[in-house]
């Protein structure tokens, strides 16, 4: 899982899919890379269980990619994100509290 997310393009894919499922073309546009370049990244993300794909209308252009919500690795990756979120917030809290205290005790 960490290997799959070590690549910035793949993290961008996860980020875009975090806002909702996307057709392959829309996903490539959202990520900002050509569809041809995206396909190998999607292959990695699918094989690591982070992303699922459904084909609509029996048409390859109708392939819709989504985050795999039940995937343990996806959930763990997301929990890591939440933890990073709070680490960032508490770091900011600490800096503010210590700055405020110094100014008060001066």
């Amino acid at each position, binding site marked *: 899982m960490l290997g799959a*997310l070590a690549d910035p393009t793949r993290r961008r894919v996860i980020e875009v899919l975090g806002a909702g499922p996307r057709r392959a073309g829309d996903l490539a546009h959202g990520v900002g890379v050509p569809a041809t370049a995206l396909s190998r990244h999607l292959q990695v993300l699918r094989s690591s269980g982070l992303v699922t794909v459904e084909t609509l209308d029996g048409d390859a252009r109708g392939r819709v990619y989504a*985050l795999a919500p039940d995937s343990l690795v996806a959930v763990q990756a997301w929990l890591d994100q*939440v933890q990073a*979120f*709070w680490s960032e917030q*508490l770091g900011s809290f600490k800096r503010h*509290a210590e700055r405020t205290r110094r100014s008060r005790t001066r």
Partner: protein
Amino acid sequence: MSHPGSVRVTIFVDVDPAVAFEVFTEEMDAWYKDTIPGAPVRERRGMLRFDEAGRRVLRGDEEIGRIVVWQKGQRLVFVDRRETEVDVRFEPEGAQTRVTLEHRGLERLSPADGLSVVQYGWRRLAVHFEEYMMQKEES
């Protein structure tokens, strides 16, 4: 070991617990990082704050959570609209305060949940993600 659907973060702050609690609850607008690139302006504008008397967590005038425990100088617990729970403890540790924040009930959300993206999400944290994952891989 914490619950699978929870995360925990601990930090040490160079103030006493009473001050830490006060800063945490009363000055959230000063320390809470609430800028979400690409988010609607409404989301960026509303500042998070605690309404102790009304037992509410507010973003601007909108209620986004409820205060469950308010022990001044010691502990604060609040729940959001999805009933995930944030438990913050302030404990003396020498001249410092150990602040332990545990966010529970996250199994009720998922990475594909739109609200989770806005509140805690992938998008906001993308900038920090790379560094964070690299540290994890090294450890």
